[in-house]
Structures are given as C-alpha cells and as structure tokens.
C-alpha cells in the first residue's frame, strides 16, 4: 500500500484548526507524554473552540485516552502546557472542575455502593445538579437506583457514568469512548441527550469514539490523532465537501498510483488506483483518466472511509 510523500505535507496543511472567533475552551501547546520509554504524545498543539462537538479519532493505541486524561490533569504530563477555560491546568483550580463532565473508558468504581447512593454522594458536592434529568435518565435507561454498582453490566455502568457526567450540566463534556458498551437503543438515546445538551449555548464536547456514525449525527469537528500528533481538526461538513475518493480503473492495472494535486493517500488494488484527494480538479482528473486509458469514478467518502484511510 504505497503512501505518497505529499501526504505529510498535506497533512500539515490540514492540521490548521478551523477558524473561530470564540476563545478556546481547551488550549494545548507542545504537550508531551511518555510511558516509560514509549512516547505517546509528541508535542501536541490543539485548540478546542467553545460550543463545538469535537470527535477525536485515532487508531487503538494512538493516545486518545492519554490525551483526554492529560487535558483534565488526571495524568501527569512530561512537557508543554494545557489550558482549560483560559487557565493553566497546573492546578485543578477548584470549581473549574465542576464545569467538566468526564465519562471514562471503563467505569468500575465503588462497587459496593448503590446507584442512588453514588449519585446522591456526587450530587452533594455540586452546586448545580439537575436532579430531574438524573431521575428521568435513570428511568429511561432502566437503571435501578437500588442496585449495587458492582452488580451492573458494563453497558449499565457506562450509562451510569454518562448520567453522572451530564447531570451537573457541564460546560465541557469529555467522553472517552462512551458508547462502546451500549446497545443501539441506548446509543441513540445517549446521542439524543448529547445533542439536547449541545443546544444550550457555550457547551463543548470532546468525544473519543470509533463509531463514526455518531459523529456524523452530531455534525462534529473531526480531530485526527496519529503518531502522537494531531493530524488535523476540521468540521465534518468541510471534510465532506472537500474530500473525494477518486478511483481510476484499467484492465492492465497500475505499477504505481498516479500523482494528482491535493492527493492525501493512494492505494493500488488490482486494476484500481484509489486516491484520497482534497479539493480535486475534476477536469484534470478526467484528463488524467483519458491519458492513462482508465475509467474514472469520483465518490464522496464517508467519515469511516476517511478514518480508515488517514488514521
């Protein structure tokens, strides 16, 4: 699978964040993090504007969880700095933490506690806690308040973690693969709640997931994390508008993929050369196809296609 040299240059170009007038909720500069000798985050620069849903994509082990934990001060960083709500995260800063909702990848705390007792305990510390929302979600998502957390299934625990995270109506919601264990109904219900929350002004969501369909529903900005760095942050609509998959097929096949302007990635499969191209010039593609004696097909890739090609 040949990957062309242009890819890195173009990826750098893509790494420019979308223009925004609002001050970023999260600002990360030169963030570095290693586990033993393995560098997971290699100097990350990232701005997350207020009022957006950010879909954080990356392959397994790309460092998504580590990045999210570093943002919240849950994992010590080796270099760089992180700002949340305009203040550095060198210290948690008191009530600022209550403006954050966090759904971790796994949720298996305090197994001896009953669901209601756990939520009551957490609510006791918050000045703002939406009890009505909590009760409604417990009922809608069939979580028994009298059941012990240790007796809940993984999916039910994830639901509980989501309830706990959104009940304080946080300004920043950080979700680390929150729907991985949810059934389709629960996933849909969760996305509904998330979109409802996003209707309120100034709410920001950072959403790490592999289920790209959810990000498409939320019209998220897509951030791609690869090789310990942010490859790009772009609104989904922009990606849809500008990215095209160009398929050139000819019976004789290809020894190497043709080079075109805006090429991000090229793959040769049998008689087909599949090119992922940004802002392709349709005329030049037709000219290329004619010159090479190939049949041309231009497709709009799905987010999943983009993820598979670029991650």
């Amino acid at each position: 699978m040949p990957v062309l040299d242009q890819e890195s240059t173009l990826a750098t170009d893509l790494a420019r964040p979308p223009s925004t007038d609002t001050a970023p909720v999260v600002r990360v500069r030169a963030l570095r993090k290693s586990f033993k000798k393995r560098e997971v985050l290699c100097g990350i620069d990232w701005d997350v504007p207020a009022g957006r849903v950010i879909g954080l994509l990356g392959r397994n082990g790309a460092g998504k969880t580590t990045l999210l934990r570093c943002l919240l001060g849950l994992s010590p960083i080796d270099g760089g700095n992180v700002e949340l709500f305009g203040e550095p995260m060198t210290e948690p800063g008191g009530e600022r933490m209550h403006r954050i909702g966090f759904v971790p990848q796994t949720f298996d705390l305090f197994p001896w506690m009953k669901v209601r007792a756990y939520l009551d305990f957490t609510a006791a510390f918050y000045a703002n806690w939406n009890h009505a929302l909590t009760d409604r979600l417990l009922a809608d998502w069939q979580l028994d308040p009298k059941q012990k957390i240790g007796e809940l299934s993984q999916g039910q625990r994830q639901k509980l973690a989501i309830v706990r995270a959104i009940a304080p109506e946080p300004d920043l919601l950080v979700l680390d693969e929150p729907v991985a264990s949810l059934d389709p109904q629960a996933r849909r219900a969760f996305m509904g709640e998330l979109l409802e929350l996003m209707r309120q002004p100034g709410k920001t969501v950072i959403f790490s997931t592999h289920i790209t369909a959810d990000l498409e529903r939320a019209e998220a900005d897509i951030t791609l994390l690869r090789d310990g760095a942010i490859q790009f942050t772009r609104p989904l609509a922009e990606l849809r508008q500008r990215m095209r998959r160009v398929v050139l097929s000819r019976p004789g096949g290809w020894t190497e993929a043709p080079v075109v302007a805006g090429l991000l990635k090229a793959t040769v499969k049998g008689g087909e050369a599949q090119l992922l191209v940004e802002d392709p010039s349709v005329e030049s593609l037709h000219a290329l196809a004619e010159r090479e004696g190939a049949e041309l097909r231009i497709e709009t890739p799905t987010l999943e296609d983009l993820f598979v090609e670029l991650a």
Partner: protein
Amino acid sequence: MKAVWQLWLQPCRQTTLIAVLVQLMWLGGAVALGLMPAMGNAAASGAAILFGGGTWLWFMMIGQCLRGLCRPESFLLPDFRRHLAWGGALELAQWVLLPTLAAAVLGAPHVWLAGTLILLLAAIGLASGTERYINLMIWGVFVLAGWKPGLASQIARAAAASPLTIPLLLLVAVLLVRLTLRSMLRIEDREADVSPLSNTQLGRSRMRPVDGRPARRGKLTKVITAWFDGTSQRAMESALARYRQRPSWRLRAVLVRRLLLPHDNPQAIALRLLLVAVIVSFYVIAVMHRQRFNAEIVGAYAILLCLSRFPQLGRGMRRMQPNLADLYLTLAPQTRADYQKTLIDALLILVPISVLSALAYTALGVVLVHATEPARMLVDAAIVAAPASLVALAVHLIGPEGTLGRSLVDIVVTLGAMAVYWGGYWLLGALGFALGGLVLVIVTMSFGLTVWVAAQREYQRRPPCFDAPLT
C-alpha cells in the same frame, strides 16, 4: 501434550521461587527417606515431615493455580477438562506413584499404606488450596483429635492394624478430590466486586484476590459481607443526610471517609470486633484447649492484628487509583495538594480505629489467657498502637510501589511494632506506669509523629496518580 505441559508448568510460572523451594524440600525429604537404612531411624521423622510437607504444599499450590485457571472462559478451550485430567495424572505419577514404587523397590515396610497416605496428603493439599470449607472440615478433624488425643491415638493404632484402612483412606482421598473438582469445574456467576479498600478481614492472613481472579465466597462469607455492606449503606445515607442538613468541611470529610473506607464505620467496626472475638475465643478454647499462652506474646499478636489493616490499605489504594479520578473531579480541589490532603484526612481515621482494635484484641487476650497484669498490657497496647499505626499508614502512603518492597516494609513495621510492644512491656514493669509510660510515650510518639509528618508532607508534595497500577 503441549497443553498438558503448559498446565503442569503453571505453579512454576506463577510462583517460581516457592515452587522451586517446595520441590527442593520434597526432594530433600525423599532422598533422606531413601537413605534411611544407612542413616538410621533418627532422621526419619524430619525426612517424613519434609517429604509430606513438600507434597502437601505442592498440591496446595496446584489448587490455588487451578482456582485461578478454572474460569468459565477456560472451559471454552478445546478439551480443557481432558487436558486437566492428563495433567492431574502426570502430577500423581510424579508425586505419589514414583515415590511409592521407589519405596517398594527399596523394600520399605508398609509401602501401600505409605502410598495411600501420600495420596491422601496430596488430596488434602489440593482441597486446602481451593475450597475454604473443605479446609475447615480437615481442620475440624484435627480439632477433634486434639480434643480427645487418647481416643485419637487409639483410633490411629487400630486403623494401622486394620486391612480396611487402605481402602478407607483411598475413599477419603477420592472424596476430597471429587469435592474439590466439583466446585472448581462448576461454572458459576461471577460475584460482584467489593471495594479494594473495604475491610471485612477477620484474620491477618486473608488476601484479596489478585490478577483479576474471580472471588469465590461461601454462604457464610456472603452473609457476613452483606452485613458489612448494610452498615456501609446506612453509614453513607446518614452522612449524606447530615451533610445536606448542614454542609461543613467536617461533614464533607466524613462523607469522603464513608466512600473510601466503607467498612470503617462504627457499626462495621463493632461487628468486626465481635466476629474476631468469637473466632479467637473458639480457637483458644476449642482448638488450643486453653493451653498456657504467654501474655506478652498475646499482646504483641494483638498489635500485629491491628496493623494488618494497613497492607490491605496500601494495595487497595493502588487498585483504586483509576477510579479515584471521579472523586477528584467531584471534590474539585483548588490544588493537587488539597486533594492529597483530603485523602490523608480521610485515611487518618484508621489510626484511632487501629488503636481501638488493638485495645479490644488485647482485652480479649487478657480474658482468654487470664493475664496476671492486664493493666500493663492494655496501657502498653494503647501507647504502642498509635505510633505504630501512624508509621504503618505513613509507609503505605509513600512507601515502595512494588509488591516485594511493600511486603518487606510490612514485615519490618510489624516486627518493629511487636518488638516495641515487648520493650514497652518491660519498661512499664521496670519503671512503673507513670515514668515508664511517659518514657514510652515520648520515645514512640515522637518517632511516630516525625515519620507521619514527613510522610504527610511528601504525599502532599506528590501529584495525585490516577493511572492503573502496572503490576
């Protein structure tokens, strides 16, 4: 054959050092028994103990390994049960058949009885490593034998002469193996996890399951755990109600304590002390038949028991690390040091609880052994338990991360505290309660407080860690 080989290797892989030591112990005993004609009968009992002990320990290790191995997922492995049976046959051939044949070749007397006894020992070892209730049954036999030693030796003599003994012992061995395997090969629903910081522990040796091994609890344990959990729920609800009525920093600390230490509320402490009193009383009266115990030893044992809470705290805090991120966000501390301070304040309650436990255990010991100087024991325990608990808590807050380092520190702290208890006991006797007590308080408390203050500072200086422990 590869699968059987892998099964056979399991005890060596999981606890290599102990496996090697046990094998050496067994081998040493076997060689000594083989050389008995040359060495004479003098070394026979020592050799038999080494050989029998080695067999028993080895099969106990196998039992523990199997307990971790026999999970529902393992039964999905192709022919798992058949491979397990072959592995068992291999073990029997090595540990039972081979020595029995060797004894027969060497012309040892009572070969078949010896072979049957080795098999029984292996079955007992296997049962000891897997099911607690089988362990209790075996223990019960020894209790009865100790209760009526004359009758027990008469039965033993009659059994040695009876031709039915060998088939009966074989039957018992088979029954034990069957009971063990039946529970191990049964697929059960996984028990709900308990908090790694919860403390239903009634003895000093009880370890929590590690490496994700599913906990298997008997009916009685489930009932007791439910009692403890009930106290936790009530304590939490009451703390929440009081906090809602009048929020304050003190009540907030109580709430955090109720969350972190669910089984360290007044009701649970009383329940634990009661259960320990019942078990210890039964042990001393029924099992040890009220033998003469040295009061100072009993007092030091009370200190050891009260300090046994802290190693569990150290392990539990490490296991809780990833989950405490939620508490961190909930507490919303101003600084990281504030958060660490909140944890310290919550955990500090263990010191008075530990002192209270030491006093209760000592008082129990005083009653059971009819100690001649109860006041001296109690005063000594009260003075020594506080600094010892402070030191134990301190080393578990900032001590080594590794299991070996922690174990070494535990041993040093526990033995050190016991030695200080004995020293204090002597001091109170030599200088009197007033002067001896004062000297003891000054020496022990100054040491304990110094260690505690230093550890507290260091803990607050360190950033909180929410990463899962790597081990």
